[in-house]
């Protein structure tokens, strides 16, 4: 996101139909995701939790895409780095923290799954697994259900660029293309799949693949959340208008190791990481708001305080919360009230 004059800039979010309050809320959510993520890393390093996987610097676009969706009607199939997205559509920090600690009250899985495996029926977030890309055909299924029931919900599904090389990407996209379904396929291209760089994942462009399925593919700069918002709004409108799917490739960079189990210095340099960390869209977004008089150092401090409090409380709560009881770990293999005829 470039720094232009303030009149131009005002035009930017307003021109996209976003109110000042929404622009501010976007920033606050990005920051919340950032701070939660950092806390996750700290908790893992200090041995309080076993594992954390980070989405740092991917949050601005995640929040932008969340703002482009309809939280009442759409279906969400995020992937494991999408803290920004799930926070935007209503998951609370406390819930994320319960998942991080693997506690019974975690709405995602009651601590059955590793953290960052999002899923919450209340929030229309489909349950997700670890094998990558399986969610792509699921999203197509949600979109198909929308179509069959005549509902106007759009399904949005995200995944990494490495994951876009799985067969399920191809099969899911192609199915949706044929049926012209209301689904948005989102590739968060952060340059690495664990240690494997983009150049070893594919010799093509992910966004170009849409052509072979007969729908638009768009590459967008993940450092420009308003542009991300714009392409998602358009994709959403196309979906609702019955014009079918869109594939959106968000260009970003994974500044953290793959997860807390990974040592990224085995396969890339600190210089490369630092250079990309410098492109972080979060301070730019803040500066944008400040330039417009929508944000200030005081508001920033208040926000940071609020977030810290929320995180502290959530951490304390999650830490003391009980695990799911051993006998409950046997439950829900099948429906428990499963009569013969229903």
């Amino acid at each position, binding site marked *: 996101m470039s720094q232009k004059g303030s009149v131009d800039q005002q035009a930017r979010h307003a021109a996209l139909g976003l109110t000042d309050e929404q622009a501010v809320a976007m920033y606050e959510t990005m920051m919340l995701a950032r701070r939660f993520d950092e806390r996750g890393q700290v908790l893992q390093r200090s041995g309080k939790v076993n594992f954390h996987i980070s989405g740092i610097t991917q949050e601005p676009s995640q929040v932008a895409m969340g703002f482009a969706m309809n939280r009442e009607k759409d279906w969400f199939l995020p992937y494991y780095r999408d803290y920004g997205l799930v926070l935007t559509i209503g998951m609370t920090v406390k819930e994320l923290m319960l998942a991080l600690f693997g506690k019974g009250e975690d709405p995602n899985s009651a601590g059955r*799954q590793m953290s960052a495996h999002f899923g919450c029926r209340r929030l229309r977030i489909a349950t997700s697994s670890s094998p990558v890309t399986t969610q792509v055909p699921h999203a197509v299924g949600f979109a198909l*259900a929308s179509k069959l029931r005549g509902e106007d919900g759009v399904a949005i599904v995200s995944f990494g660029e490495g994951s876009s090389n799985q067969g*399920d990407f191809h099969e*899911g996209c192609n199915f949706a293309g044929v*049926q012209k379904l209301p689904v948005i396929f989102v590739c968060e291209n952060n340059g690495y799949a664990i240690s494997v760089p983009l150049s070893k994942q594919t010799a093509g462009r992910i966004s170009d693949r849409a052509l072979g399925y007969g729908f638009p593919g768009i590459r967008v700069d993940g450092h420009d959340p308003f542009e991300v918002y714009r392409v998602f709004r358009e994709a959403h409108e196309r979906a609702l208008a019955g014009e079918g799917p869109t594939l959106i490739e968000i260009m970003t960079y994974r500044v953290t190791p793959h997860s807390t189990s990974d040592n990224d210095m085995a396969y890339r340099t600190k210089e490369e990481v630092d250079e990309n960390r410098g492109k972080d869209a979060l301070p730019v977004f803040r500066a944008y708001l400040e330039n417009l008089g929508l944000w200030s150092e005081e508001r920033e401090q208040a926000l940071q305080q609020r977030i810290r409090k929320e995180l502290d409380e959530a951490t304390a709560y999650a830490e003391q919360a009980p695990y799911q009881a051993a006998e409950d770990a046997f439950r829900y*293999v099948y429906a428990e009230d499963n009569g013969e005829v229903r």
Partner: protein
Amino acid sequence: MPVIEYIDAIRLAMKEEMERDDSVFVLGEDVGLKGGVFGTTKGLQQQFGEDRAIDTPLAESAIAGVAIGAAMAGMRPIAEMQYSDFMFPAANQIISEAAKIRYRSNNDWSCPVVIRAPIGGGVFGGLYHSQCTESVFFGTPGLKIVAPATAYDAKGLLISAIRDPDPVIFFENKKCYRLVSDEVPEGEYTVPIGKANVLREGTDITVISYSMPLHFAMQAAEELSREEGIEAHILDLRTIQPLDREGILEAAARTGKVLIVHEDNKTGGIGGEVAAIIAEELLYDLDAPIRRLCGPDVPAMPYNPVGEKMFMLNKEKLKAAMLELARY
């Protein structure tokens, strides 16, 4: 009660459930206009339109995966795999996803999908149009697996499967499609998933099986009764997962001599688990070692008639094994 073919029982179950419940739909390769390569879905697209009898692209992982997504969204999809031999591309969706959705979400989500797949040989289909693939999916908790042998059970179990809140694999036997006919009530009824069924009462030997081979067992049993006075007790598992432990133990205890039969190859098949259950619970009630008569441990059934015959079970093979056990 009208006598109808096994394949029609399957078709009627789908048709009636689609009439009853708007959320039921079928999807798969050639299931629409053509009505399926075997004709199982004939007429459904004509009656319910292109949206509820969907000809999909040739991509089994998508067929399963899209059905799973739609099921999570509250629909009741029936996904057809053209042959069970072709369901392996969907193995990840079935085993990693459908089977684990309820468990991993702690009951927040569910996946009421039915996956229909024809099993079995004897149709000159060769290595890849004859396989019994049930043992690959058997043992994956979260899945239910049924495999009817009669038209009555086919309809009743398919209706149960469609209404079941969890994923059900419905293995229909392609050799039964037109060879098996029996009395099937008009309109709605269900056969419970998880309950085995005694097809024949007997006191000398117990045969435990499912799907097509039961017909050979029944024929052999009649002959053995007539010719040798041997009375076979025959149990149709009907549901492979979850197995009806009580039904199995009761049938085994009845005679103390057990022969387990399936067309799927022996090693690693359902029969091993059935034998293990009996060996775990009933050891002292047995009067003979637990026998299994199954397909041989070769990768699949050859196409040429000699090879096919070598692989397939038939009345003679059953009769010989039953006689040998009775005489033990």
